[in-house]
């Protein structure tokens, strides 16, 4: 019944994606508050119960959802969710929460000798960067994804990684932040900062040098000279140990473009969320990234399209009038039925508005498969709840 709501779009075949052994990464992305984490967890569970070895990487799960997956601590390591497998005993589900600072620390520790790693980790600028830089979370989500993928290939641990994306200002941040951080750390300015003497007195170098003089002057004035020297020593240390951040970002970006990756864009049937989803779909197309389709959460589903909202509203009106003339039990049941009809009309209207929004999305992006999940009365608290979501995702075909 739910698929009637969004008749214009082709259905998204979730089971075909989960069952495709050539797909190793599913990225769930979309605006904040649309149920990304829940969808990622539901996809992971369903994949595991179809016999795949799945690892779900979540960024910031709500407490009860984390508990549903047996995640009680944020320790940056995948933990097995007990009791999850396919009927034939194959398949497994692991889940983890991203600890962005810890992941960054691991990158440093993995690429520098101990002395240098300590030097970097204790640098005040590094500490600011690793805990609050506006793109660190996105970058580290990608970094962790890359690590998990390498581990999966080397050890054969997982054949499917489902990744949830950070609650960014914009869903596009997930794609842009790594390159931004990379180009920032690799950029001209930071290079000048680490070697202010280089090129001074020669042609263009002199011009840059002059600008730089003003700049450091201004920055020192505002922030204090200490900050600049922290940045300088951080970049110098990091540069010699594991060169180009941009290169690393490029590698992860390439992983996302791989045919073994599949993007699932998630939205709610609301204007802003769908606009965000549309941006993302366009971006994936421009960058030639593999889009599986759109998941629409919290859709008002229709129990009985036989009765239009107009008919229901007219019926309710008639009954209100009749109940004014009737008495006792008859009047009471007429008022009750009028209320039920009004409720039905309200739901039909909401569904019509949602369908209108979804159809507009489909008109602009024809061919993008859509799976719609009806609004449930309660939030998901346990594996059974996630299973229900998984069933609904798959049924939508």
């Amino acid at each position, binding site marked *: 019944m739910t698929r009637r709501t969004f008749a214009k779009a082709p259905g998204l075949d979730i089971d075909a994606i989960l069952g495709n052994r050539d797909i190793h990464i599913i990225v769930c992305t979309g605006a904040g*508050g649309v149920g990304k984490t829940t969808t990622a967890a539901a996809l992971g569970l369903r994949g595991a119960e179809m016999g795949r070895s799945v690892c779900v990487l979540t960024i910031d799960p709500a407490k009860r959802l984390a508990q549903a997956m047996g995640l009680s601590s944020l320790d940056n390591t995948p933990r097995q969710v007990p009791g999850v497998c396919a009927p034939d005993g194959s398949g497994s589900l692991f889940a983890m929460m991203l600890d962005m600072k810890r992941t960054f620390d691991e990158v440093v520790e993995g690429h520098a000798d101990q002395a240098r790693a300590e030097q970097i980790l204790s640098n005040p600028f590094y500490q600011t960067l690793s805990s609050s830089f506006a793109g660190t979370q996105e970058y580290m989500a990608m970094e962790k994804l890359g690590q998990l993928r390498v581990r999966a290939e080397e050890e054969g641990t997982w054949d499917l990684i489902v990744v949830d994306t950070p609650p960014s*200002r914009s869903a596009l941040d997930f794609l842009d932040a790594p390159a931004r951080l990379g180009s920032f750390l690799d950029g001209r300015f930071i290079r000048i900062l680490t070697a202010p003497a280089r090129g001074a007195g020669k042609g263009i170098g002199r011009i840059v040098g002059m600008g730089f003089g003003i700049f450091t002057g*201004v920055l020192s004035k505002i922030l204090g000279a200490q*900050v600049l020297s922290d940045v300088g020593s951080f970049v110098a240390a990091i540069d010699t140990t594991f060169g180009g951040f941009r290169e690393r970002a490029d590698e992860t970006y390439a992983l996302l473009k791989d045919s073994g990756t599949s993007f699932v864009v998630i939205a709610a049937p609301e204007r802003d969320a769908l606009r965000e989803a549309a941006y993302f779909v366009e971006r994936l197309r421009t960058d030639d990234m593999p889009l599986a389709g759109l998941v629409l959460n919290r859709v008002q589903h229709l129990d009985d399209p036989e009765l239009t909202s107009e008919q229901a509203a007219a019926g309710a009106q008639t*009954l209100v009038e009749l109940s004014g003339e009737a008495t006792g039990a008859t009047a009471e*049941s007429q008022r009750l039925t009028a209320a039920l*009809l009004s409720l039905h009309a309200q739901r039909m209207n909401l569904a019509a*508005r949602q369908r209108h929004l979804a159809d507009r999305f489909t008109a602009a992006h024809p061919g993008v498969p859509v799976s719609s999940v009806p609004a449930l009365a*309660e939030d998901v608290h346990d594996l059974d709840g996630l299973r229900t979501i998984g069933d609904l995702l798959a049924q939508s075909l």
Partner: protein
Amino acid sequence: MTRPAASVPSTDRAAAARKWPGVNLHVVSGKGGTGKTTMAAALALALARDGRRTLLIEVEGRQGIAQLFDVPPLPYEERKVAVAPGGGEVWALAVDAQEALLDYLESFYNLRRAGTALRKMGAVDFATTIAPGLRDVLLTGKAVEVVRRKEKNGPDAYDAVILDAPPTGRISKFLNVNSEVSGLAKAGPIRKHADLVMNVIASPQTLVHLVTLLEEMPVQETIDGIAELEQNHLPVGAVMVNMTRPPLLTDAQLLMAEHDTLPAEAIRAALGAAGLSAHEDEILPALLAEASDHAQRVALERREMERIEDLDLPTFVLPLLSGGIDLGGLYELADILTAGGVR
């Protein structure tokens, strides 16, 4: 910018009881998807009523205000976007960290030209990037600058400033600029600037309002967000419960719907009386199922409402607008806030 003539004598304005006397900076936050920008805009309209002037500020580069008021994308410049009931004005501003840094350099160091040159070199981007704390100080600093701004003849440039702020999860950090820059700068101008910003944000002239829906996760985030604000000594204002739907059934009917004991045969008879007997075998079970779903949802919403009431904060309940949010809808929401004492 010249101040428009007030259409209501100032004595009348002062005489009207105000819900939040002395507050002129309203920070609006909430979980993503709860309608934070819409609520900030409705609040700006309500506070501008009767000849007052308010400024609505956004800081996340989303252009949500322009979309809401159906105007072209906002530049880094104050623009009038709406007229409030009774002749007031709502102005709007999209603050950008880079522009704010240039602004700051100009007003504190008279360095605008140097700043423009630095921007061409990518230096401004660099500066706002290396220090996320700096970014937030610049954004909140701009809001505070507007709050403190006076007209030549003395009155405040704006009667109230409404900041459409980052979501609940980041709000305490965003506002607590003092501790953010403390790691970066222990002394010096930016530190002094942060102190000045903090003096306004943590004062009785500021309130932080949180927008929520009657759903488990947004309510939990609101509760956690309030605890965090209080820990950081930031002034908590009201909880705005958005997109509520009044139950269409009476409590007794809801109870029956919840337990699937609605009188099916009586409803069937009433459907007949309404001329809807054609498909009654399909319609009747569908209506009963919808009623049961509705009852479950109302029960959940009431549980969540109780958790909000336990917070013991001023609470505004706003309806889901059936036609979606447009300019007319904003005025409707503003009227509800006004009826709740916001002026």
